[in-house]
């Protein structure tokens, strides 16, 4: 295994993977180390899936700058990387006159942050935009540049494009320490050995505080994880057209209701204390808080139509609460990306480009590769195709004719694509995130046995070693007849 790189990125979430993707443009050897078995396993795949317009952060902050820039970049980056991205726009809904004055403040903030097209809609205009809105709503702030995307798909697309352009990803490789020589980082230690490098980018998200502390930088910075629960509804039962927020409070943007790129309704998040950074367990109280909160926006939501629930953790930093995007001053060779909570996803491309600037400022000579390919073509998605396209696809490869997931119409061909992609899926959840298999009404009940067989065959491992999400999450443990008594 190669153990010398120019740049090492710690973390393969949206920040780490987009940074890797932008860095892949230059003549540098880049390594991404990830402690999990796949990219974007942490907050990057469990969030609201929204590219916020950028009226919300306080003008003058790093958050405001990155969000406004990031949103603009996403609109061109998403098609370049083949990311499913829908320009839905967003609404902040007022239910009282008091709320309306808050909308006006937000509109002023939007102007200060340079967010285009933000206007206030009256009741009738609101109802036209979102027929299911609470009839008690009186007005709304409309931000046309907000969008929704498939968050895991976005991380994957960035990672695949980075790999296609020469970046190396190592999974199940956990950062343990820095190698520091006279005030300068010369490498990192991981559970898979040491790696020599000139620069380290700390994109460790929830764990970024622990990483920076190991370098003796920003030792006062700490992350207090806060979790948020979400519920997903059956698109056959209810659909929305927009991203809909309540009027924000001191607690944040509040519990929203949104469409997703997949046509589901998503509601959430609340804001709960966590039992550690990997506490992604939902609780009944939290789920009901989310449901009751979202019902104030969309009264026709019905718990009967919930098809999935999950929980994400925010990387809430102490101090001002603003993003920290900087060269560490205490040690040379480290770029810290700290406290990247919401709107982190919207800000990610801007943060990644800022990292490039910081590297230049540090004296890195970034030479462009002549053969850099910024375009990543997505794999076929049978469900979204016309019959003519489907016919052609199956004719080319019959595996696309075998439908493995009945609700989402995911074919064996798509599953094979996921397993053999530049950033390969090696687990059930890895396939699920890439293809949307098992995310529908039956939640995988139909596909489980079929996917266990496919993973076992393609990875050349016995069924007993097929996992849901890495070691320790095996799905079966023996043959039916292999029993001692």
């Amino acid at each position, binding site marked *: 295994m190669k153990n010398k790189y120019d740049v090492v990125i710690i973390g393969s979430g949206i920040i780490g993977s987009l940074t890797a993707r932008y860095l892949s443009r230059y003549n540098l050897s880049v390594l991404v180390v990830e402690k999990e078995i796949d990219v974007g396993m942490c907050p990057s795949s469990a969030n609201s899936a929204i590219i916020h317009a950028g009226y919300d952060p306080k003008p003058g902050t790093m958050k405001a700058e990155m969000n406004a820039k990031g949103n603009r970049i996403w609109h061109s980056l998403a098609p370049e990387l083949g990311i499913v991205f829908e320009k839905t726009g967003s609404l902040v809904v007022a239910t009282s006159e008091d709320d309306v004055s808050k909308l006006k403040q937000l509109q002023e903030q939007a102007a200060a942050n340079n967010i285009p097209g933000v206007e206030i809609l009256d009741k009738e205009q609101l109802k036209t935009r979102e027929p299911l809105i609470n009839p008690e709503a009186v007005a709304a702030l409309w931000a046309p540049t907000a969008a929704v995307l498939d968050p895991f798909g976005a991380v994957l697309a960035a990672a695949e494009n980075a790999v296609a352009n020469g970046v190396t990803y190592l999974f199940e490789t956990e950062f343990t320490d820095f190698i520091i020589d006279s005030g300068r980082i010369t490498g990192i230690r991981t559970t898979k050995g040491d790696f020599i490098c000139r620069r380290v980018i700390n994109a460790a998200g929830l764990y970024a505080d622990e990483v920076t502390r190991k370098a003796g930088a920003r030792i006062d910075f700490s992350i207090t994880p806060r979790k948020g629960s979400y519920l997903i509804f059956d698109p056959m039962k209810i659909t929305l057209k927009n991203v809909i927020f309540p009027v924000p409070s001191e607690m944040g943007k509040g519990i929203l209701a949104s469409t997703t790129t997949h046509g589901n309704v998503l509601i959430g998040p609340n804001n709960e204390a966590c039992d550690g950074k990997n506490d*992604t367990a939902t609780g*009944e109280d939290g789920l009901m808080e989310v449901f009751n909160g979202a019902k104030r926006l969309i009264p026709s939501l019905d718990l*009967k139509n919930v098809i999935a629930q999950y929980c994400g953790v925010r990387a809430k930093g102490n101090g001002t609460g603003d993003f920290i995007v900087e060269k560490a001053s205490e040690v040379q060779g480290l770029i810290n990306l700290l406290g990247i909570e919401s709107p982190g996803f919207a800000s990610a491309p801007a943060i990644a480009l800022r990292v490039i600037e910081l590297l230049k400022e540090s004296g890195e000579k970034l030479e462009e590769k002549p053969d850099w390919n910024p375009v990543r073509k997505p794999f076929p998605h049978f469900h979204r195709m016309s019959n003519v396209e489907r016919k052609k696809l199956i*004719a080319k490869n019959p595996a696309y004719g075998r439908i493995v997931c009945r609700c989402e119409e995911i074919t064996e061909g798509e599953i094979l694509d996921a397993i053999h992609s530049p950033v390969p899926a090696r687990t059930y959840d890895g396939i699920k995130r890439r293809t949307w298999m098992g995310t529908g009404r039956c939640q995988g009940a139909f596909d489980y*046995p079929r996917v266990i067989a496919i993973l076992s065959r393609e990875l050349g491992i016995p069924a007993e070693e097929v996992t849901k*999400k890495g070691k*320790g*999450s095996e799905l*079966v443990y023996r043959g039916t007849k292999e029993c*001692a008594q």
Partner: protein
Amino acid sequence: MNTTYDVVVVGAGPAGLAAAIEAKKTGAGDVLIIERNDEPGGILPQCIHNGFGSVIFKKDLPGPAYAYNFIEEAKTLGIEIVLDTMVLNITPDKKITAANSRDGFLEFEAGAIILAMGCRERTRANIRVPGDRPAGVFTAGTVQRLVNIEGLMPGKNFVILGSGDIGMIMARRLTLEGANVLKVVELMPCLTGLRRNYVQCLQDFNIPLSLSTTIKRIIGKKRVEAVETVKVDESLNPISGTQETIACDSLLLSVGLIPENELSKKAGVILDPLTGGPAVDENMATNINGIYAAGNVVTIYDLVDYVSKAGMIAGTNAALYTMGKSSSPKYYRLIPGDGVRSVVPQRINTSNIALKSSSTEILIELRVLHEFDSKVFIDIMDGDKVLYSHMEKYARPAEMITLRVDTSKLAGATGDLTVVVSSK
């Protein structure tokens, strides 16, 4: 394979097989069954337990044997079955698109279509069990397939949520293959499956059952490590202080079935919100001319024999439709009245009941809203007038009641009919 068929059946389960056979016997020309699984029989090949066939074969058969009888008959009759093939769309003018990896993208035109897609299981999200999302949470049917068909054991120590028949049958099945079933918990204060399954699946193997209990939380990040159970009160609210943590590696869910009707909706078929399946008449005809539906796609049955019976009715009438022997009918609705949760069929062809002389039997399947411990009367009412009355020794929401009604009994009907249950 042709591109046009007189009758196309979607699903080769007990309803679809019976429908295709009956359609062929009635005189339909080419009959095709499209099946998504790699063998015919629907869920039956994995239901290796006995208890099937008492009505149709007057025998107690295991599921695979019950299915085998139908599969052999279908073969003998020259019915085509295309396996491993998923139907993607059905239009109201009876064009079907499907796909498989052998023949590619398929398009068919059908004279008549019979919807026999069956049902799916309710999942963890439907009942919102909180916790993380580890491996080891399975629906009962998935485990049944893994253990009985694929030959794979998905766990060592199981807790089962739901005392439905599949849950109890899997408790026995897992025990017989050397797994530990630690407990079956049931939210309701009574068993939701048959009592005989409690005896032969739980009691025989000393598997404890906790009624009025549910799973409060799933513990474990990668694989299930434990579940937390809690007692519930009469209004099904958790009683604090009654939590109990059970260490286990698997949670098996047996929390109900839902008719599978995504294709029906695409075809423009109107569904009954009470059953979740197409609203049909006594011939199993839907609102779309030439599209019929039968089995668990219409309503969840207790006995597979009645699923097959419904298939037969749909098959006969679909064949008659393609042979031009079916006129556009007028209907009286059949409405669930006091004490009744749902009724199938939802409407009756007036020409079928107009003739006093005709004596055809129609099947009416209903479920009651709550438990009746003693004698109950099920009446079909035309306004205040009782046209038909039937007595049962008891009635339970978990058990479907099948009425075999002679249409001559309904001959005097003047309008929509109501079905009511009372203990009088």
